[in-house]
């Protein structure tokens, strides 16, 4: 839902970032307002996942220039956990398995960290179980998953549903979902998309990183951005994703060839 007067949640300006000695992001500009759903598309290696990790504060990526403001404040100076607590959520492309750490305990600690930041009281074990069982319905997960170690032995679809469950518990203001649709069968994709759709509201925003139109058939984006060579090359409405589906990315090469080469 596009509302020009909605609060600006995320403002990325001329963002450059590298991993080790390799520049990946080369001047990303993007503004996200409350209520909006953005889709970020592009070939493998175009910088989509790097952008998501930089926003979440992954220590392997260093920002070399540019800025990211979250609700007007400098996001880049915050530790990853602080970013999460104030409402930035990254749904992982490959959720990490953590043997020995109970999913239920992990979810409770994470939820309480977010609640404390918002000034809400911590939930004890019993109150949290009530909450999590209610949110489980959103992603149609079996409560037995709560008793297992975090993501350990989960199928690809179960891991992605667990990501959306975390999103449902943390109630972020900006949710960045990195290829949440990858590795999902049709039913799992529908469940995940419905979950994301139900969580999207007028006060929050969603950035969907995806390769495929099939997710966007279920979640209609307000904006579609195409990334290439570490920048957003083109921005359009939902029809841009349909165009990509028809034409592929060959036009990207032509457009990049017309542009001056940036020296890193």
């Amino acid at each position, binding site marked *: 839902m596009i509302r020009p007067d909605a609060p600006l949640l995320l403002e990325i300006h001329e963002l450059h970032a590298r991993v080790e000695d390799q520049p990946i992001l080369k001047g990303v500009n993007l503004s996200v307002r409350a209520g909006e759903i953005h889709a970020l598309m592009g070939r493998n290696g175009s910088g989509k996942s790097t952008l998501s990790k930089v926003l979440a504060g992954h220590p392997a990526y260093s920002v070399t220039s540019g800025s990211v403001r979250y609700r007007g404040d400098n996001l880049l100076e915050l*530790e990853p956990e602080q970013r999460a607590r104030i409402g930035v959520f990254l749904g*992982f492309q490959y959720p*990490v398995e953590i043997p*020995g750490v109970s999913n239920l305990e992990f979810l409770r600690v*994470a939820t309480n960290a977010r609640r404390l930041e918002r000034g809400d009281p911590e939930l004890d074990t019993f109150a949290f179980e009530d909450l999590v069982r209610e949110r489980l319905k959103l992603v149609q997960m079996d409560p037995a998953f709560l008793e297992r170690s975090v993501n350990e032995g989960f199928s690809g679809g179960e891991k992605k549903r667990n990501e959306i469950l*975390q999103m449902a518990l*943390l109630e972020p203001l900006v949710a960045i979902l990195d290829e949440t649709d990858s590795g999902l069968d049709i039913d799992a994709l529908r469940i995940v998309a419905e979950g994301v759709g139900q969580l999207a509201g007028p006060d929050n925003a969603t950035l969907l990183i995806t390769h495929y139109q099939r997710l966007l058939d279920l979640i209609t984006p307000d904006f579609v951005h195409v990334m290439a060579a570490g920048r957003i090359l083109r921005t359009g409405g939902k029809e841009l994703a349909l165009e990509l589906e028809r034409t592929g990315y060959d036009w990207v090469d032509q457009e990049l060839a017309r542009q001056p080469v940036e020296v890193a």
Partner: protein
Amino acid sequence: MPAVALPDTAAWLADLAGEPLPGRRREDWRFTDLAPLQAVAAQLWSGPDPFAQLSLPEGVSRIDPAVAKLLLDQGLQSTGGSGSWPVRLNQGASPTCLALRVSGAAAPLQLALDAAAGPGLLAVQVLLVLEPDASLELLIQHRSCAVNATSLVTVAQLGPGATLNLGVLAPGAPGASLLSHLAISQAPGSALQLTTAVGGWALSRLEPRICQLDGAAHTRLRALQLVTGQELADTHSHVQFDGPAGQLDQLHKVVADGAGRSVFNGAVRVPRQAQQTNAAQLSRSLLLSDRARVDTKPELEIVADDVKCAHGATVSRLQQNELFYLQSRGIAADQASTLLLRGYCDEVLRELPAAAASAHPLQLLLRERP
């Protein structure tokens, strides 16, 4: 606390064992400094009989001391542990002996061996004879709160079809030492689960020796040892297959912090008669400090040609991707590290006999405040 070597203790220990303390020139003691043991007062522990108050569940009965002596010797010989220095020390130290026979499905049993604040050497022997198809779940808890030493020799004989779930939970104390030798022989069709969790001792040495007498038995070993400060924890395990179709599933985990030192030597012997043995051994070590040291060595001797024997060893720090995942959910770095560490340890601790839960093994071993 730096260990101060007292010459008279070394001589006294050598006299009890009938041979000098093993030195660094012996391969199986190469990394194990016995200085903490020599800091113990040269006297036998003089507290009350640790088994005086023990009430035995149905299906468990005491064995006549004269018979017990024979069975202990027999058990040590069948597993090849008779010549071990900790065994000889134990035998020379007039150990208190608890000898039990188990028939049928016995109720769980717990033994508490608390050297407490008493000085000197507490020596104990435990003999378990499981009759065919008998089953027992036994938790042995060691404790200490002073500069003293505990020497335990456990001998178990599992009859055909018998099941033993044996747990050793041993949170130590600064300056305290623990020497534990476990000699377990298994008849075909028997199942052994041995779970050991040791941490906080100035010196600990565990010697599990398991022999599948005619193969066709199942052995599951789970171990966790933690070191920090100047502590040293040493496990020398030895599994012998003397018949075909035996199974071993062994996981040995280490947490090494401070300037602690961890030693693991995992011997597996598969002679020619042990065809179709299926054995897997994995050693995983978590190194939390630049000054900590881990020495880990698989020692597989395989002569039979139709077997599956897998082994692996990893030494690593906390996984950065796991830390980031937790941080990205609002969990602070130090809390995330603690969660990961607890999860790492819990993989072993959750396999202790159920009775261990009430002792809060994670808190004990990680020295967390309740």
